[in-house]
């Protein structure tokens, strides 16, 4: 009964989800990036652990990729962007923290209610894992819509990608190519967003979406 593999995988997945919640209530940009790094680390550990219990060496590659890109390169790069652009460091959430948390909890409930009956034939680990990763994806979306700051929207987007990778590593037999493509897509997104941020900065002198929107002629 006391299956260490299952428990540890569950724990790591739960940590990823917990970090998603932590992302939701961060009020400062650097803290946000730190929490994101922690999530990436947890994800990397989860991938490595899955590689160990599934005896799938390619998951170690995924773990390394996640570690390198998500936990090191991207936080450092975003950190540098924030410093270089001298972005206002506090974040104005569009929704109060309490409400955001409530919404997050309901989303997790929804995804558990959704995944559990659908995947009755799958193993318990896969089911838990899918529920957790769907929650992470939904929380990432929630973060994207409750934040006004462009950098935090980028972070929200990348936490969606984390959720996807969590789902991918949890299912046994997923070929490496999928993880590669996900990693690359995140990379591309990062580049796009980076360029996007620079351009916005050059044009409008702000990264606050509310201020940017007022530049559109027909908007209110």
């Amino acid at each position, binding site marked *: 009964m006391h299956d260490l593999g299952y428990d540890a995988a569950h724990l790591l997945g739960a940590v990823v989800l917990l970090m998603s919640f932590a992302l939701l209530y961060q009020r400062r940009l650097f803290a946000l990036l730190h929490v994101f790094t922690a999530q990436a680390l947890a994800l990397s550990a989860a991938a490595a652990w899955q590689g160990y219990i599934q005896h799938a060496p390619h998951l170690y590659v995924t773990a390394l990729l996640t570690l390198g890109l998500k936990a090191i390169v991207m936080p450092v790069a975003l950190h540098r962007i924030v410093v270089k652009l001298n972005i206002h460091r506090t974040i104005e959430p569009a929704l109060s923290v309490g409400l955001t948390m409530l919404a997050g909890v309901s989303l997790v409930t929804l995804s558990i209610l*959704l995944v559990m*009956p659908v995947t009755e034939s799958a193993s318990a680990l896969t089911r838990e894992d899918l529920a957790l990763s769907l929650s992470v994806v939904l929380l990432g*979306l929630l973060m994207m819509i409750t934040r006004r700051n462009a950098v935090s929207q980028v972070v929200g987007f990348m936490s969606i990608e984390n959720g996807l990778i969590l789902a991918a590593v949890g299912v046994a037999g997923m070929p490496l190519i999928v993880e590669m493509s996900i990693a690359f897509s995140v990379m591309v997104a990062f580049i796009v967003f980076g360029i996007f941020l620079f351009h916005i900065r050059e044009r409008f002198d702000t990264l606050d*979406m509310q201020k940017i*929107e007022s530049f559109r002629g*027909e908007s209110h």
Partner: protein
Amino acid sequence: MAFVVSAIVGLLLLAAVGVAASRIPFARGIVYGGTGALCTLLALWSVLSLAGGAGTEALALPLGLPWMTAHVRADALSAVFLLVVNLTGATASLFGWGYERAHHDARSGPVLPLYPLFIAGMNAVLIADDAFGFLVAWEFMSLASWLLVLSTHRDPDTPRAARIYLIMASFGTACLLLAFGLLAGAHGDYRFDAIRSHAPEGWAATLGVLLVLVGAGSKAGLVPLHVWLPLAHPAAPSHVSALMSGVMTKVAVYAITRVLFDLIGEPLWWWGGVMLVLGAVTAIMGVLYAMLQDDLKRLLAYSTVENIGVIVAALGMALVFKAAHVPVIAALAMSAALLHVINHSLFKSLLFYGSGAVLSAVHSRDLGRMGGLIHRMPVTAVFVLVGAAAISALPPLNGFVGEWLLFQAILNGPALPQWSLKILIAVIGAALALAAALAAACFVRMYGTAFLGRPRGREAEEAREVNAAMRLGMAVPAVLCVLLGVLPTPLLRLFEPATRLMVDAGPFDDRAYQPWFWLAPTSAIGNSYNGLVMALVIGVLSMVLVVAIHRWASAKVRRSIPWGCGYDGLDPLAVTQYTASSFGQPIRRAFGSTVFRARDHVDMPQPGDTRPARFHVTWTDPAWHAIFTPLVRLVARLADLVNRLQFLTIRRYLMLMFFALVVLLVMVAVTQR
């Protein structure tokens, strides 16, 4: 079957000739001649097919999407409607050829390429055997007729008419699309055979039937969906108006018949009740509208609305009797409906040809500019008189036979089990009788104003008789009107396979012996009609009357200049004679003041003022007023709301996606329980 398909292909080729009309010599003759010849052949084919018992022929054509084949099929019902379409198609080609020579407007849009396409589309609807083919052909027919309406785009009224027509046609097709989706149900097989064998039941069937009634009814012109019809039908060239009014509405009737009597299986009785009410309201409203019109072609278009009401009421009768399992009387009502379909196609096309002839002679559709045309255009006047008498259901013409049959079915109303229907049918009978009487008044008004009296304008004074092709085009339906009125029984025999297919009985089933000159379809009441005797009696009485008048009355007539009533230099008879509007005034006062809010306004100058007094009539269409204007306002408001979606912030767009995702996930979670 293969012949019908190849004829349709032939029509498409003729359309190609029409496209290159400017480079091909005698293109007009080729297109109209070819279309007329193909229509004649198709009509002959359907007559032969019906006479031979009308077996069902089906064919699968490798058309459409790669994994599908188009199914076509002709049974007795298709054959009846093919006959109706192509008979009028043939006369319209003949008339149109003459009409375009007499009345050619160099600035008008192209008619030649579209005319064969329109006829091909209507034929294709009638032989389609799957919902895809049906809808494609239906839309083909709608769009071709829409372009034909647009050919007179220089007229100031045409763009609005075409726009409303396009909206209503799209709405109708959308309804039919949904209806076929419901009829095909979950198994997703859109062949009519499959729908027939898995006909839906319960609310899906009811909703499908109502959608078909709305979708096809908007094409047929059921009130209150008729609003496009009196705008679009008159706007087209006259031979196309004849086709749209006389035939395209019948294709819609075909759609209703095909679904309600064939595809749906066992009908519910109250569907027939809905059709009866719709039909009766349409008939009365249509003829009241017609009574108000001063535009000749618009009057005819509103009269089409009335006749569609009669046909739909007859179909409703057939449906309630079919649902009550009284097949003999259902067959009687079905025969009445089919007979009225072909009758209306004949006399309505005849009247539209007549209006085209008048239009090409007087250059106006306004009744107030006509008058006395019987002297200038005697041949046209005789043909239009036949058409007007037929549409007014006067014996011994064909209109009378159709109405007579329908009333035989109505008189059998007490044979139904439902008390509500027994009472309803009595009311419907009264309403249809009222509509018939009003139609007679309406056509007396039309004929009297246009052809009798004195000319009301210079054009009417100088009108010339139309060319031989147009006269021949009018002669054929006029002769058929008389022939079918005098000898209806052979035609009803011809249509018997169709009624048998639809309601499992023929109109003569309870009569062992039925002579060809005697119409006594059901022994339930024992009534009978003999067109020959009727024609003979009317002929003899008319002779006697004519002789008597010439012998005694005309002998005392002397011609002299009458007192001029104080008019200086004007023909007092031309100025003081009844106008279209004054003739219609009693009926307008009696019915129109409440239904249409018709008001007469007299602008009387003060004493000493030398300007003439003016009189004008205003009226509003309750369908516009109560349904379409609010609807248009609602659509505009919704469009404004939707337009705001174009200007949201990025975060709001993300929010929309997020909520859509969450709602869908919740739906999945709930339905998984």
